[in-house]
């Protein structure tokens, strides 16, 4: 078995090598004199097709290829939180310190810091029986995250040593006597990215993943363990929504994968997250975030790997029993990376040049999400929610990446160019978006928020749909042709759009709204609508109804602070009183 192969062909990120026998498909290899990272993606006879994660210029036939005989693995252990990695988990901050402002080729740097000491707190005792997935202790990884140290999935036996100590991730913290002898455990684990991490059982998701974004939480919610996608043309605000979600969702851990997107956007996250505070804990958001950045100008093959790197890290934290949310921006770039490799492999293309396995790859990626009973004997629960942005070319949703994504995701937030140009943000189209989690979330909110939640939500949506119908009519025959009842409805729909659905991501008070406040806001608008309808029956002029002083208070209600909900009662009382006054004046 020879360890050394020889390059016979170079074509962009694809390199073909001979003489790598013994190497499995998807094993990592180091290519050429620069020792570039690569992965075997196809074996034809004696020819090994390698996708190289770095720029291949200057590589030529005859150069050596060395097999590692291992699949591409990520390192899992303390130190992930707060880090920024590239698509193949190289730590970008360390690389910046050591190698300068540019990412040059052939840099090798361990993903996790080997020198940093962590204080390990054991939770098990010598003599305890342990099984794969069992938590044996923890370290305080950040102010927000207790990093649980788990037994590797393939290990079981009796603890013969475990001790509280300060150690690096490579120091031995425990020993297990297994059937095959003693095994030493460190805080570092490795896991091949393309295989999902084992779970004991998948569960139905039952609780909403609260995002603080009104249009999402109220109308198109996602659950903990759910999957959602955000397709939209450029300029419609995909990235702003992804950033908003990664800031405000009530998950314990956020993994943000910037896959083939703008460099300045990742910089924005790097600048903002250490400063922005988590609404629940008041700690900086960076204390619960892992960033994977493979910007559009970084090598395309590493972009393909970046989503797997991200989701494996996310699964690892889920296994600790956390609620994890993964944002991938954007999966279209991932699809394009697959297309590029596929075309270099001269595979028979499917739709629009995308490989025929596009659908199955997307599906198996999203399927790694879910609400689960984690592997291990204590039956702890964890969840992994995935929110993927899609960038359909020309905003055309019929293209393959969007269509294949829609087949697997259950919440669909359709971004609309037209709404964005009207500066209606978030520009999620309420007529075309959907969420199949609505029933599950209704059950939850009816109990924990208010029993009228579902009714209010449906009523509001009905008004918006009716408005769309009326708008067409108005466009044809003018607003004068509508009955006063319909004109009131149009006015209320406008309130819903401008005072409820519109949410300013950059305003400190408006950027996050709790479910309770969402309900109170809806309640004010709907009560206004009911009362106003009543007044119309008494022939009170519409112009008076829609110009009561409270209207401006309603427009401002999104700024009411989260700790001052009495304000809503006062607002409601004032509004009803003003409306009441109108009817009294009429009768008197």
């Amino acid at each position, binding site marked *: 078995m020879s360890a050394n192969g020889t390059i016979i062909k170079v074509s962009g990120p694809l390199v073909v090598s001979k003489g790598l026998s013994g190497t499995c498909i998807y094993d990592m290899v180091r290519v050429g004199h620069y020792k570039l990272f690569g992965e075997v993606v196809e074996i034809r006879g004696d020819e090994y097709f390698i996708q190289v994660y770095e720029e291949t210029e200057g590589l030529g036939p005859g150069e050596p290829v060395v097999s590692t005989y291992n699949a591409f693995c990520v390192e899992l252990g303390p130190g992930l939180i707060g880090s*920024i990695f590239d698509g193949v988990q190289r730590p970008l901050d360390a690389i910046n310190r050591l190698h300068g402002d540019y990412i040059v080729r052939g840099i090798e740097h361990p993903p996790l810091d080997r020198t940093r000491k962590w204080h390990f707190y054991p939770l098990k005792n010598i003599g305890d029986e342990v099984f794969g997935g069992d938590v044996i202790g923890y370290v305080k990884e950040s102010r927000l995250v207790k990093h649980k140290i788990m037994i590797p999935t393939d290990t079981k036996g009796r603890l013969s040593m475990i001790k509280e100590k300060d150690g690096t991730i490579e120091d031995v913290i425990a020993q297990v006597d297994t059937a095959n002898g003693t095994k030493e455990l460190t805080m570092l684990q490795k896991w091949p990215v393309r295989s999902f991490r084992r779970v004991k059982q998948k569960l139905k998701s039952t609780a909403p993943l609260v995002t603080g974004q009104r249009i999402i939480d109220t109308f198109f919610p996602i659950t903990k363990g759910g999957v959602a996608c955000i397709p939209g043309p450029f300029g419609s605000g995909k990235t702003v929504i992804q950033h908003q979600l990664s800031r405000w969702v009530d998950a314990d851990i956020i993994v943000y994968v910037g896959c083939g997107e703008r460099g300045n956007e990742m910089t924005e996250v790097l600048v903002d997250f250490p400063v922005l505070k988590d609404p629940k804990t008041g700690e900086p958001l960076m204390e619960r975030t892992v960033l994977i950045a493979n910007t559009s100008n970084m090598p395309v093959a590493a972009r393909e790997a970046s989503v797997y790197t991200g989701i494996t890290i996310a699964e690892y934290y889920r296994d600790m029993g956390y609620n994890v949310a993964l944002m991938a921006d954007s999966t279209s770039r991932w699809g394009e990376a697959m297309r590029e490799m596929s075309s270099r492999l001269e595979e028979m293309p499917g739709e629009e040049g995308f490989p025929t396995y596009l659908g199955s790859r997307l599906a198996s990626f999203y399927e790694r999400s879910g609400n689960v009973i984690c592997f291990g004997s204590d039956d702890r629960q964890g969840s992994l929610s995935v929110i993927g942005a899609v960038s359909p070319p020309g905003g055309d949703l019929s293209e393959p990446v969007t269509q294949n994504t829609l087949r697997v995701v259950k919440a669909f937030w359709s971004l609309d160019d037209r709404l964005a140009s009207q500066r209606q943000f978030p520009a999620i189209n309420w007529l075309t978006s959907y969420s199949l989690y609505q029933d599950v979330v209704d059950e939850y909110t009816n109990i924990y928020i208010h029993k009228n939640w579902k009714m209010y939500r449906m009523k509001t949506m009905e008004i918006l749909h009716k408005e769309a119908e009326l708008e067409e009519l108005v466009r044809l025959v003018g607003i004068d042709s509508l009955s006063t009842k319909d004109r009131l409805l149009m006015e209320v729909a406008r309130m819903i759009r401008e005072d409820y659905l519109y949410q300013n991501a950059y305003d400190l008070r408006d950027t996050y709204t709790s479910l309770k406040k969402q309900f109170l806001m809806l309640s004010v608008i709907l009560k206004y609508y009911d009362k106003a309808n009543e007044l119309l029956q008494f022939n009170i002029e519409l112009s008076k109804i829609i110009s009561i002083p409270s209207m401006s208070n309603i427009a401002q209600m999104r700024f009411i602070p989260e700790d001052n909900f009495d304000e809503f009662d006062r607002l409601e009382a004032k509004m009803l009183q003003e409306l009441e006054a109108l009817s009294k004046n009429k009768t008197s």
Partner: protein
Amino acid sequence: MFKEYLNIQDIIGPLILLQDVEGVAYGELAEIKLASGEVRRGRVLEIADHRALVQVFEGTRGISKEDVKIKFLGKGMEIGVSSDIIGRIFNGAGEVIDGGPPIIPSKYLNINGSPINPCARDYPKEFIQTGISSIDGMNALVRGQKLPIFSGAGLPHAKIAAQIARQSKVIQFQEKFAVIFAAMGVTFEEADYFITDFKRTGAIERAVLFINLADDPTIERIAIPRMALTVAEYLAYEQDMHILVILTDMTNYCEALREISAARKEVPGRRGYPGYLYTDLATIYERAGRIKGKNGSITQIPILTMPEDDKTHPIPDLTGYITEGQLILSRSLHSKGIYPPIDVLPSLSRLKDKGIGKEKTREDHADVLNQLYAAYARGNYVKELVVVLGESALTPLDMQYMKFSELFEKVFVSQDEEENRAIEETINIGWKILGYLPKTELKRIKQEYIERYYKPWNNSLPENTD
């Protein structure tokens, strides 16, 4: 010292396939000597066993299978740089074409560059004043941003680009500033317009020009933006200069890319463009930015003509996904005689929020911008209604909005080609036309600014002011 090869197997479009080569690397530069003594350059696109696929920059016309000698130079495509490069004009092969002496490089740099580490980037936030109200006021440009102009055939994008190149400056600081201009496949007249304009205004003293004309080899268009950006990086990060890179016309660049892709018989993506068009464009656009600890910056204004004015065509579409916004030129504004015909409604600068406001431009800038945008959008909506329903169906307020939208186009957007408006002036013009609307309609502006700046419109309407 370099081995010369004679054995060409195939010639397909701009590509030649060589046999029996030794020790050749992917991306290596090749020198092709024709029987006539002419020397052309090429780049290895694929290397398999002993066969190399070479893309010839100057095109393959005149190359025969016999009598051609090819040698490989053992390095990728490079450009020689030095600080004397400013003020010079180059062609697509990187040769001086302004009649002056060749430059003496202080070093050679690979034109492909390396991706900037996202950790090393600094967030762009310094306002650049272009002197054009529809850009400064509505879609402010900041240092390190990439903001393309989406144009169409027959629209005055060249004039706008020249005006930006002439007038751009950062208002807070007086620092070294230079323009790098790369023209790909433009007509002689267009190139001449830029050169003449730069010479006339003296802008050439702080500019580097790369010119590839429509009848120059297509393949050179692939290298030109990369050469320009390599020079830009050198000047920005090693000479501490602030660089504005203007790339025109990216549509020609993409077509050159498609030509090579087709010659290589690659599986095409949308409209025949290669599937890697996005990645390829990103390697150009993403070279804009700022780096922490470095004084210089690179700001990019790529210009592209949208085929059939279609924003969803792959070139503008993929560009829009990479760049930080876009300025869209409107044919209808142009036909109304409004210069610059920038349609502010679909235009967008994603980074403007960080560059405007107190101590950067003026404290009321953001509010005025939002109000102008909203009022103009409403005015345009009313105009649409009028087409269907007639003016009689409008309320007096609607009429006012309709007039406002005309004022906006004629007074705010419209300006002379030589007119360099300071940002103060732009914002003041904004207030002037907002004066045409009743005070109560200015819902997006803070009360204190209204009190400070609002003055009711007392001029005659623009029909009469014309």
